[in-house]
């Protein structure tokens, strides 16, 4: 068995606010294996982005953070700032949500990519610029020699996200964290950008940690999936397990609320009732309890543990009613 690229072990992140502590991430544990695409799925406030930022140690300074994030044989939460800077952009690189705002508007695109090279590699400025042009070409930006000299506002949204990807893979990172990389883009561009990410991953062998709320994106690219809700992992497993053999009412709810091409004709979308839990005052017991159609009294008293389902231990789910779920789902289908 190979060593995971990164392991989150019992990670908790809390923010002090005027109204009390917000426990954004609660005891989250999962690994990302080399070369795989791991998707973290959840709605706003589920803690998925905070988890990703914690891996880069870019979470707000006021946050209280416990647990471990192991990367390259050490705990990233325990190393000094200087050592962490060597990890950022080199061992772990990040692609952000909105390419329109994630690039510095007053610096040439080439300069921004070359800077990434120069921080971590001892090369000449000229060499770094040549690499920048090569990188732009590798992510499918036409005329890279001319494009490096342009400013971000001269790039379209899709081209900017390609430039972000070029920047992220500049130093051949082991892990690429993509935080909602396609959310701000047109649907037609989304597919292209995902394709570019996939190609870049194949070229560099990097693992990808994909943070998204878009199940369509996950289905297209992910090997494994972690579903988060209310700061906790609710279900984890291979993409097939989570998509087609989900053992969690929340994941089920997510699936039935998105349109699918293979759905029977006339089938209606079923939204999840209610709103995501209040982060300051989460419900007692299971965080999804108040919105869950299968919830009973025990669900409101305590939260369930993450349990293995199936035989090989790869598929895990958090639900009090785990044993009854197949029957409950079947009953719901026929209703």
């Amino acid at each position, binding site marked *: 068995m190979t060593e995971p690229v990164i392991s989150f072990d019992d990670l908790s992140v809390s923010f002090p606010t005027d109204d009390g502590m917000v426990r954004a991430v609660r005891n989250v544990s999962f690994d990302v294996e080399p070369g795989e695409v791991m998707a973290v799925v959840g709605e706003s406030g589920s803690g998925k982005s905070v988890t990703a930022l914690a891996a*880069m140690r*870019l979470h707000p300074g006021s946050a209280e953070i416990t647990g471990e994030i192991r990367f390259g044989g050490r705990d990233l939460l325990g190393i000094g700032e200087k050592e962490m*800077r*060597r*990890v*950022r*952009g*080199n061992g772990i*690189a*990040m692609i*952000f949500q*909105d390419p329109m*705002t*994630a*690039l*510095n*508007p*007053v*610096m040439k695109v080439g300069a921004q990519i070359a*800077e*990434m090279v120069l*921080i*971590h590699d001892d090369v000449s400025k000229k060499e770094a610029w040549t690499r920048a042009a090569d990188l732009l070409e590798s992510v499918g930006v036409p005329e890279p020699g001319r494009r490096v000299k342009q*400013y971000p*506002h001269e790039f379209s949204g899709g081209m900017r996200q390609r430039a*972000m990807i070029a*920047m992220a893979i500049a130093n051949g990172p082991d892990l690429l964290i993509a935080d909602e990389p396609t959310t701000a883009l047109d649907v037609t561009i989304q597919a292209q950008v995902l394709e570019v990410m996939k190609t870049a991953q194949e070229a560099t062998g990097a693992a990808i940690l994909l943070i998204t709320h878009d199940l369509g994106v996950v289905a297209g690219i992910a090997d494994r999936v972690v579903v988060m809700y209310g700061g906790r992992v609710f279900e984890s497993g291979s993409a097939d397990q989570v998509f087609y053999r989900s053992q969690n009412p929340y994941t089920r709810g997510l699936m039935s609320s998105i349109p699918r091409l293979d759905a029977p004709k006339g089938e209606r979308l079923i939204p999840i009732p209610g709103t995501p839990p209040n982060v300051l005052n989460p419900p007692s017991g299971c965080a999804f309890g108040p919105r869950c159609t299968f919830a009973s009294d025990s669900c409101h008293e305590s939260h369930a543990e993450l349990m293995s389902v199936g035989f090989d231990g790869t598929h895990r789910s958090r639900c009090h009613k785990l044993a009854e779920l197949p029957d409950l789902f079947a009953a719901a289908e026929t209703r």
Partner: protein
Amino acid sequence: MFAYAARRILATIPLLIVATLGLFALESSVRDPVAELRVSCPRCDQVAFDRLIDLYDLDKPVLDLSNPAESRYVAWLGNVITGDFGSSTSQGENPVSDTVFTRAKNTMILAIPAFFVIASLATFLGVFSAVRQYSKTDYAITGLSFLGIAMPTFFFGLFLQVFWGIWFHDWFGMRPFFTSQMHDDSFVDLLKSITLPIVTLTLVVVATESRFIRASMLEVVHSDYIRTARAKGLSERKVIFKHALRNAMIPVVTIWALDFSALLGGSVVTESIFSWPGLGPLLLTAIFAADVNMVMAIILLISVLAIGFNLIADLLYGVLDPRIRIS
């Protein structure tokens, strides 16, 4: 870029005409043009006053569209275009342009060093305050800024005079505010004379500018591209100075242009308090003496400065921000 600048300059001409015309009308309509003389020379008779009014055409309308040649504004404008601002009625009948030129030079001696002190100090305080947001230093800078914004200029001027001139005049063995004349021969003398006025100007302007720079910097520091810069593994120093500062300075350029043009136009309060022979006190006396030619010349200078520096700010915008550069 050149055509853009030329267009901008041409567009200022109607602006200048409206500004001077309005002031001309105000200045010469609200007052009896010889009121000062009536008070200061009780024995003068009406014949003398009438001669003065006739000499300066004070009885003619400011602007008479039916007979433009008869209007004072058109006559004034015609002369101004040829560089003749007329003679002063309050400054010993000297040509207005000579007096304004000397006074403007004096004002520049204060304004130029003051601007550089203000710009660098405000940038330092604003950036520092933003980077250390909500720290004790930030609160201290914020508190002092509000004090600077809230207190009137004359308070600082008078306070500095009392402080260094009376309470602690032994410290440097100087009484800076006693220097009321220019001492061109000695640089040290000059330095003594300009230090306190410059400090006064600095206190007031830095207070507002540093707040503005802090706000601009905070907005930039919390933007996505700064997070990107951090995610690259850049040191915090480089993140601030290489990525944040230039973006934060784009809106500040406008403030600098306005403040610098205001300083060059002469500060009435500061220069008057320190008896500095600049444009500020000159404007004040000219207004009180209903010296229309003088007032018009200074107002025109202030307008040209404001418009000119705004233009410079716009051009600098283009240099700093590629998004608005005209191709």
